[in-house]
């Protein structure tokens, strides 16, 4: 077990379709993050969940993007009406949540999304 897992690993979709990306964090980790990595760009923060607190959605690029975390564990990132500029690698990370911002984030392998 152990690490952060994401599914699917690759997703090809047509412009205008909705997609759902899934993240299974490390068991026991209360903090969960979504990032986006576009070709040649640094990782871009999207959203942060910590325990039962309201999520920090400040990084979501538009209202087509949403995420939820059920039962404090699995998270789903949904992109509605996908656009070609949404093509990127979507990375999920989790951390223990006990040290605030200075703790190690453990990343999953990412979902590579291609919007045609």
């Amino acid at each position, binding site marked *: 077990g152990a690490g952060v897992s994401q599914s699917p690993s690759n997703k090809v979709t047509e412009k205008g379709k909705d997609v759902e990306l899934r993240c299974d964090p490390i068991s026991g980790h209360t903090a969960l993050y979504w990032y986006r990595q576009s070709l040649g760009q*640094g*990782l871009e923060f999207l959203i942060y969940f910590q325990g039962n607190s309201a999520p920090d959605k400040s990084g979501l690029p538009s209202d087509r993007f949403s995420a939820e975390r059920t039962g404090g564990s699995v998270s789903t990132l949904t992109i509605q009406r996908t656009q070609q500029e949404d093509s990127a690698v979507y*990375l999920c990370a989790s951390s223990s949540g006990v040290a605030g*911002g*200075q703790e*190690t984030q453990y*990343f999953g*392998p*990412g979902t590579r999304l291609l919007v045609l």
Partner: protein
Amino acid sequence: SQKIEQNSEALNIQEGKTATLTCNYTNYSPAYLQWYRQDPGRGPVFLLLIRENEKEKRKERLKVTFDTTLKQSLFHITASQPADSATYLCAPSNDYKLSFGAGTTVTVRA
């Protein structure tokens, strides 16, 4: 707005040499700075964290410096090995919302 710049060119070095990577940031004052390694097709892996009150930190063959006056961090890989070939990302931050540079790709030739 916050800006993070890493070596714009890829770094190609001979095995056994020291690789030095640069991370410069502007328009903010991070309390700490993390370095991650990313291999193709994989997520980043944490390497080191250095705080603003620390000048230098070491871990095995890795050394990181943090100069808050210059707004710069240097990342050194000593006695480099082909297995060190990867992209290295810096993330100067103040909270959980990590902001990453675009990364520097290092290739170590045997």
